[in-house]
């Protein structure tokens, strides 16, 4: 059994620990070891352990205020680690500033897209590649992003803020891809989008993942996320209460009741 078995989510059938597939034999890409974080005096995360292996897609589920976004911010270094360790690509990362973590291969698609509204689509994409030298590689990546999102190609000169929510989501994803990341962190990519768009976004996420880029996605929309993820973690009030392969989480009774909207 993974997780502490507290709370409603885990009270049903327990998921077995993450299956030791071939992934387990590889070096983890990202590892959180007993991470605790605070906002001032308020503890947000408690003793969180997570692993992401290269090429994996892992989703992080949980209700409101369960600490999902904080987990991402901790990985990025926006929020500091008060206890525990964070490892990225075999290197201790919890002392590194955000820019160093980005330079080492993280990229983020923030909550609510957070594109730069008064910059053009092209400038937004350039900001994604901020830490890399401009040159031939930039054009290559730009071509790849525009192939993935042809819509952006039509609008390179348009201001980011004038685009629709779905287009902004595409831009935010394209921007993250421009840094040639090893790991993309996504915070609620489906938020505020029409169902049809959500499906397309997740299709693209899967496509990106199939190119070997690891994806760590925070989602409220558990059904859609688990459908394409390899593994999942469930957070509740800052603690991991459940984890395992996506299929098992989907079948878990407690999960069904708490997050999947089934009875």
């Amino acid at each position, binding site marked *: 059994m993974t997780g502490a078995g507290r709370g409603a989510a885990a009270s049903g059938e327990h998921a077995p620990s993450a299956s030791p597939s071939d992934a387990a034999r590889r070096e983890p890409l990202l590892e959180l070891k007993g991470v605790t974080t605070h906002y001032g005096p308020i503890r947000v995360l408690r003793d969180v352990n997570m692993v992401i292996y290269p090429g994996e897609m892992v989703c992080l589920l949980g209700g409101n205020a369960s600490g999902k976004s904080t987990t991402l911010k901790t990985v*990025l270094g*926006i929020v500091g680690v008060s206890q525990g360790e964070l490892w990225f690509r075999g290197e201790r990362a919890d002392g590194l*500033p*955000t*820019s160093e973590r*980005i*330079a080492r291969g993280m990229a*983020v698609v*923030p909550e609510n897209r*957070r*594109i*730069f*509204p*008064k*910059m053009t689509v092209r*400038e937004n994409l*350039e*900001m*994604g590649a*901020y*830490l890399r030298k*401009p040159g031939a590689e930039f054009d290559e990546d730009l071509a790849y992003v525009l192939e993935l999102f042809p819509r952006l190609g039509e609008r390179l000169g348009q201001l980011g803020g004038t685009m*629709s*929510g*779905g287009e902004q989501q595409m831009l935010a994803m394209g*921007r993250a891809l421009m*840094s040639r990341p090893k790991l993309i962190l996504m915070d609620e990519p489906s938020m505020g*989008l*029409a169902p049809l*768009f959500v499906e397309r976004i997740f299709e693209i996420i899967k496509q990106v993942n199939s190119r070997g880029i690891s994806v760590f996605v925070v989602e409220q929309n558990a059904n859609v996320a688990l459908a394409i993820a390899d593994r999942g973690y469930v957070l509740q009030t800052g603690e991991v209460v459940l984890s395992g392969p996506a299929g098992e989480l989907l079948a878990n009774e407690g999960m069904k009741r708490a997050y999947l909207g089934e009875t």
Partner: protein
Amino acid sequence: MAASAVVPRRRPWALWLVVLGGLGLITWRMLYLHGVNEAFNAAFFAGAVVRSLQLGSLYALIALGYTMVYGIIRLINFAHGEVFMVGAFAAYFLFSRTPFSWPVALLVAAAIAFGVLQFLNFWRGRARDPIVLAGALVVFAVVAFALASTQLGWFWAMVASMFVTGVLGMTIDRVAYRPLRGAPRNSMLITAIAVSFFLQNFGILAFSNRQTPFRPASFFTGPLQFQVFGEPLFTSWMIVLVPSVTAVLVVALTLFVTRTRLGKAMRATAQDAETARMMGVNVDRVIATTFLLGSMLAAAAGVLWGMTFGSINQPAIFGILPGIKAFAAAVIGGIGSLPGAVVGGVLLGFLENFLTALFPRTEYFSGITEYKDTFAFLAMIVILLVRPSGIVGEDLSEKV
């Protein structure tokens, strides 16, 4: 999803009507005055226009510093007027024959070297790098020597003062504002006032508290005379120099902000600092650069101000009035917007100079020259009531 209602533009012709009506009224007023008294001729009004442009350029240069800092950390940097003052005095000591005393030169050089150390640390990314330390030492020696012994022409004095003052701005950010990044905004505002007081008193100690003649040997401070519709206009070459230098600096700043990588990072940080950080932008370095550039522009304004008026006021008060007027200009144009600062500055110059020319002292009327300072703040209040985002600024709604 894309069914956002298009907001109808409100009567675009209304603005043009106001502008044309205003120009009409001004023309009528000028013709009327000319009819009353022959002295109010074309040369009189042309003189008012060029002086407006000159003063407006100075306000614009200072206002850019306010607007840049506000745009990036939402701080109204009340110490900016004092930075302007230091810029003028630094240049004064560089071109005048009365150099700094050695102790003051050493003190100033030490402060500057500390700033350089900070700056280079940012760029090399490592603390206590031997190259950085060596660089700071060299700067310390050169600055101390230069302050204590050199005498420069106005141009090199201005360039050197821009450098010195820019580093001062960065040092202020490092020492006074950066430790307060996470603090409530009012804490930073109060600190800014404290920094302003500190610099005023530093100025009294370092520069002595008296009005200082500011007359570098220069062609541009010499007289200029030309004909406007057959009437002679006597003025100085400064009416050419000030707007030209301003234009060059504004163009350079615009190119920096739109074309360079750091400039783009600056715009990104102004729009959304947290996301910029997530793209790998070193936000502290961007903020330091903002202070560097804003203070450099203020220093240039200080030098041009001194040359225009032939003297600079006591350090305790010199920065105050130009400072808050430029702040008013930034608000009028739309604080946070670079074109807004330029528009607001020039507009304020016209409000002060041209408006007083339209209501001159006559036999029956004492004129409004003595009230000209009031116009800046009146205009600011009106703008805040009617269009709080300023003339050029778009939306003030802040993302949280």
